[in-house]
């Protein structure tokens, strides 16, 4: 019961934070003038204005000019559109998405981001933890020093540096892997026998599961995973060395367990307590991905869309994606915090 109350409180606080930030953001965005002259030429602009009017964000005033409706009204309509019609607005500045519903573009961009993150997590978590365990068991020997040094380098060096290095060496000089993620129409033409159909505005999941797509995603996956591997290795090593020196390990050895038995049965399980929430957090944040990696490898993902929407001042996209990133970030934090209590009964959640 106590726990339930605590979880409810945390979720409530998260929602309050989310609402405040999003409403502030909405108001600030809507205060900006929508310059119809830059929206597009001729017919496009008319279409977009028509869309805005039908959504209630604009209306015709007495002199026959289109003006924005009051912000409070816009906010109400915006929320209503989202909750009742699943409508997050339309794109009006990015040429390729002009007049398209934000949501349909978003779900089209989601699969590559998620896949690259998941592949990278699948690669990074076992390797990172294994390296950490190895380093902890060989503490202060050369293996430990080597691993610790490499980990330090990979934690410090920014992702765009080793991503560029990877791109240059593996993809360009040695030509082992393709240079960028292949486009979906390309996949359709590469595998005519599989009968793929590319439908804009949908997830297109089947198109992502084939050899060509997988290979082209690999460089990005590798660059994403380096940092995570280093992070997991460092964290596991620190936790495990602490547990290995604790007294219950001595007890385990005195009652006759071998070193490996004691390590696997007692030390590892205890060391995993703070690492497991990290893993859960990683799987929540697979949705968000990395802007830098998506830019370097030209992944047609959410990050690229967000950058494009910022640079071309496409407000509806910006609003929706900011909300998305914010939600994912808050959720990941919340899940990590709550999972501590679930995994380790010794931690009483919300205790003062």
């Amino acid at each position, binding site marked *: 019961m106590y726990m339930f109350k605590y979880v409810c409180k945390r979720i409530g606080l998260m929602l309050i934070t989310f609402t405040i*930030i999003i409403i502030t953001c909405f108001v600030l965005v809507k205060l900006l003038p929508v310059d119809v002259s830059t929206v597009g030429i001729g017919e496009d602009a008319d279409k977009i204005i028509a869309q805005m009017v039908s959504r209630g964000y604009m209306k015709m005033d007495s002199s026959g000019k289109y003006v924005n409706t009051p912000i409070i009204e816009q906010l109400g309509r915006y929320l209503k559109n989202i909750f009742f019609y699943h409508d997050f607005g339309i794109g009006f500045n990015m040429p390729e998405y002009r007049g398209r519903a934000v949501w349909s573009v978003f779900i089209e961009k989601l699969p590559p981001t998620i896949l690259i993150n998941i592949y990278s997590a699948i690669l990074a978590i076992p390797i990172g933890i294994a390296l950490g365990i190895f380093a902890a068991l060989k503490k202060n020997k050369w293996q430990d020093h080597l691993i*610790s040094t490499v980990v330090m380098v990979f934690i410090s060096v920014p992702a765009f540096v080793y991503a*560029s290095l990877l791109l240059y060496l593996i993809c360009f000089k040695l030509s082992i892997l393709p240079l960028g993620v292949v486009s979906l129409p390309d996949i359709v033409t590469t595998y005519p026998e599989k009968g793929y159909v590319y439908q804009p505005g949908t997830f297109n999941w089947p198109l992502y599961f084939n050899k060509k797509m997988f290979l082209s995603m690999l460089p990005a996956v590798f660059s994403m995973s380096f940092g995570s591997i280093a992070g997991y290795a460092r964290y596991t090593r620190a936790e495990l060395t602490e547990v290995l020196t604790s007294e219950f390990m001595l007890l385990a050895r005195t009652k006759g367990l071998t070193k490996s038995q004691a390590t696997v049965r007692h030390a590892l399980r205890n060391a995993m307590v703070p690492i497991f929430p990290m893993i859960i957090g990683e799987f929540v944040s697979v949705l968000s991905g990395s802007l*830098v990696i998506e830019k370097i490898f030209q992944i047609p993902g959410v990050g690229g869309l967000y950058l494009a929407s*910022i640079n071309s001042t496409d407000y509806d996209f910006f609003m929706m994606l900011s909300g998305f990133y*914010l939600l994912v970030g808050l959720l990941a934090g919340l899940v990590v915090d709550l999972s501590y209590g679930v995994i380790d009964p010794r931690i009483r959640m919300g205790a003062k």
Partner: protein
Amino acid sequence: MRAEEYKISSEKFVLHSAGEQLHDEKLETKPVSYLKDALHRFTKNKASIAAAFIIGILFVFSMIGPIVSPYKVADEDINYAYVLPKNDFFYEHELGFWDGGRQMGVTEATYNLYRGIEQETGRTVIMTEPEVRQEEYMGKAVSYYDFRLDTYNVVGVKFVLLKHHEYVALQEYQDEYNVQVIFPITDPALRPEAEQDKTNANIWYRTKAGAGRKTATVFDENGDFIPIYQADNGMDEYTSKMYYEGDEKLYNYAEPKDGGMWNVRVDYREYYKYLHHKAGDGIEYPSFLLGTNNAGKDLLICLASGARFSFILSIIVASVNLFVGAIYGSIEGYYGGKIDLIMERIVDIMASIPMMVVITLLKYHLNVSHIVILFVAFFITGWTGMAGRTRMQFYRFKNQEYVLVAKTLGAKDSRIMFKHIFPNAIGTLITSCVLVIPSVIFSETTLSYLGIVNLNTGSLTSVGSLLATGQNFLFTYPHMILYPSIFISLLMLSFNLFGNGLRDAFNPSLRGTDE
């Protein structure tokens, strides 16, 4: 037991050291202050010392570089774009690297062009003996020449448009310093037919239409180039004593163009020196230690001034965050209760705002320089961490007895907060303040790399935009991304090691928990 049996007469008692004065023994050792102790622990950590040293070098480089270097960020010369790193010492001693050379494999036409430049300017363009290889290209055997190309000397001769008085000034310069800058103009009628070569000033010899709409060279019977210089027809009143060969005036050195301009063929290396001589900025011949970028800007000065901006920004952000965060966190932590609850909610919300959203909204709303936007954004999202740390320290110390004593003695709240409790938080705050610097540099680099903030004004650039430009030329000119990458990696690595060392030094109890 009766007391009388043990009665000892009082005379038997003698004071042990009567008449002597007893004092506490004076301490032989000197008191060690907290900072000294931390410094002592810090100096024991070899990796951190090395890291601090590297940070120091990078800092000095970024601060002094822009002052010492004759180049400015605003200096750009498109003719020297993409030149490779060159060190004059390595160049003169022909060590084979860091000499502005670039391995090339070119067709015969291009090879001949380079030979032409070499012959006309009298400077080495082809640095190594070319190796010829035959390759099949579109069904025909094509010979390729592999050699090391001097990316500086290959610029050769350029057409420049000068006003008449500029032309005369250039002639006077030639006479004064006895160098030949102006080369004879080529005959328009004999200029190459291929469209892409029409404006190429380096073709001073007879050509013909070659295969695939390319220009091919025509040689005389000895295999030499045949010059196509415009013979003197009195069009230009060339007065300088410098002539192409001999003392007589055989050729035209300028041709009139529209608007009173003169089209002149100049030896660009000498002309570059002339331009800088005129500007008086102490630059002689072009030589860039880290090469140039796509706009012909010196990468060394761009890197140094970008780094300087990053350092200054991060130091200011760190100190402002420390100041605001420390005060806010002190109030929160000291008073606790409702005040803490409300202030903590504000911090929660502030800390959750994504940096990207702040920057974008500021960018949309404020029509100010991106430097200001960066600063405001870092402040909005950054001070909460500092506040949280201070608050935690206050919670740890505010219920200790010595605080109670101070309160009983009537100390004011502000005195207790800043005189008695705050010094306990200094260690943690110094460590986190130092670690704010690399994180600000990193975020700033990432943001300018992604193009969300654009710091490229005339006299400013940032490491992030250097990296972003370098990324576009990753496969053709990797030197453009190499040096900024090395810089940022080295800086981040050193700061991480340095931060670890600092943390161990200031909080010995945390040692090794996070290595």
